[in-house]
């Protein structure tokens, strides 16, 4: 290849863009003057987005109380500002890169299933360790492999080759990507996170989930790194990576331990068995986003 895949992707004009309102909301989350009113007013500027955020807020996955929340204002009061910002981010990304691609649908769905499973596992571990990531762990899990989705979208044929290579040679996906495409999903994901001006922790997670020691946001990157492995161990896999590993030998595990999180309290066997039930949650989560009549699932 004369021009590298990374350069080609950087120069693609019609790379998906986040809805401007979503970018504005993420921007607000960084500002000192963030308020309930500002965030809800901002989301309402994009009515289809607002509808979707409300629908997700009312889904079994997020819903807190018995009564349905019918305004964003109420949703924020119930769930907190952070969670609504997280939902807005997830909804926006999933609607521009939907789980069903035109080609290679099964693999595309497997990529997303893996991402959602990673987010859900991260949520469980976050709770067990009392990390208080405030929902960022779910968004982080959801977006950690966004680079794979982009590679699959723009270099589908080559990406399938990399996938086959990873299975044949029994190597991690990123090694197969380097071999076949000369770039990795981490590099592409990081580029996209920056282009979309996503929060710094997401950019960190996309780039360093396989080397959490390099990250600036160490806690959450280590958390996603572990969750990613466990999702693969339970075969919520992006395909390719059929790994064996010792969890307690992982750099991410040592990092969490050093940061004082009670990792030694986790019954790893039992937790691994519990993850079996996450399969059901993954499907629930996907269906939340793909209910009939949900608009906005078009490629832009």
């Amino acid at each position, binding site marked *: 290849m004369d021009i590298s895949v990374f350069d080609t992707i950087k120069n693609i004009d019609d790379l998906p863009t986040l809805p401007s309102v979503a970018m504005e909301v993420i921007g607000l989350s960084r500002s000192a003057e963030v308020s309930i009113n500002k965030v809800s007013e901002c989301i309402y500027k994009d009515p289809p987005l607002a509808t979707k955020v409300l629908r997700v807020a009312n889904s079994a996955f997020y819903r807190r109380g018995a009564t349905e929340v019918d305004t964003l204002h109420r949703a924020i009061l119930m769930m907190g500002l952070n969670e609504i910002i997280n939902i807005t981010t997830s909804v926006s990304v999933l609607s521009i890169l939907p789980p069903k691609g035109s080609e290679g649908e099964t693999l595309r769905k497997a990529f997303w299933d893996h991402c959602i499973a990673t987010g859900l596992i991260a949520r469980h571990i976050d709770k067990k360790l009392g990390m208080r990531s405030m929902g960022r762990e779910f968004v982080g899990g959801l977006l950690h492999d966004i680079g794979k989705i982009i590679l699959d979208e723009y270099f589908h044929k080559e990406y399938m080759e990399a996938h086959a290579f990873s299975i044949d040679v029994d190597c991690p996906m990123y090694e197969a990507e380097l071999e076949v495409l000369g770039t990795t999903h981490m590099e592409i994901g990081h580029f996209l996170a920056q282009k979309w001006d996503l929060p710094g922790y997401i950019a960190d997670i996309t780039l360093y989930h396989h080397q959490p020691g390099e990250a600036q946001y160490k806690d959450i990157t280590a958390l996603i790194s572990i969750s990613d492995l*466990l999702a693969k*161990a339970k*075969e919520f896999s992006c395909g390719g990576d059929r790994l*064996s*590993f*010792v969890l307690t030998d992982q750099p991410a595990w040592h990092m969490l331990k050093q940061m004082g999180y009670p990792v030694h309290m986790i*019954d790893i*066997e039992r937790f*691994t068995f519990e993850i079996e*039930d996450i399969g059901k949650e993954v499907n629930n989560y996907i269906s939340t986003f793909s209910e009939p009549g949900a608009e906005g699932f078009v490629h832009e």
Partner: protein
Amino acid sequence: MSELRTSAGTAQMTDDNFRLLRDFIYEHSGIYFSDTKKAQLENRLMLRLRANNLTDYDKYYYMLKYDPQASKEMRSLFDSVTTNETSFFRSPPQIQAFQEKALPELMNNRENIGEKTLRLWSAGCSTGDEPYTMAIIVKELLQERLSEWDVKIFASDISEKALRSARSATYNEYTLRSVPPEIKKKYFVPDGSQYKINDEIRMLVELQYLNFNDSKRVRLMRGFDAIFCRNVLIYFDDTAKKRFVSQLYDNLNPGGYLFIGHSESLHNISRAFKLVHFPGALGYKKE
């Protein structure tokens, strides 16, 4: 069947019942029932409710927890929650982990030190499905090179009846339901309505009577590269379990693997092993 139904026949296991019983069983046996297996647990425990003439799962849980006779009931409970049936290629993810990851690694290590020997142990082999499955996997991996290797698969059980059946190496269609057709063709010889394992595979397996309480003899089982001891530990109390697992650790070569039941855990039993996550299954490694 209606005349056989006692009041337990209509008992419903609530989600709370399920969680309490699941945790109780895990704590005492190391066997975990995930949410998706609620119906399975409910079915199994229905029989225990009937046997004890109880009308609901609340009462059963309290009996287990507070009744002085509970230890007797626990034995029956664990019996009913472990599938006593055994079959070829049982728990595919574990078999696959052994076949694709553990075994190639073990053989590589052996070859690197120029010692082409392999010792496997099916501890609690029942009617022989497990050790013969292991033998088939080894043959599949080595193919023609099998003759260059010194391979022995020890298979032990406490039941003479099971061992007799294992020696006959003859199985019905149902036991072979998870066997891939090409494997069946290669290694099984039709024998009336049944199938007999071929001689090459049979020769790899050495069956013997062994009582795990006979610590002198268990100690003699040395130098194994992998031990399968699935759904056996539930029959021991905690102290015996700890002693036995530490013995199994000693029975393994450095770098060797122990596989226990698919949803069994050694969490409260041993810290000596490294817990390895294989795709879809767990294994315990001696370093």
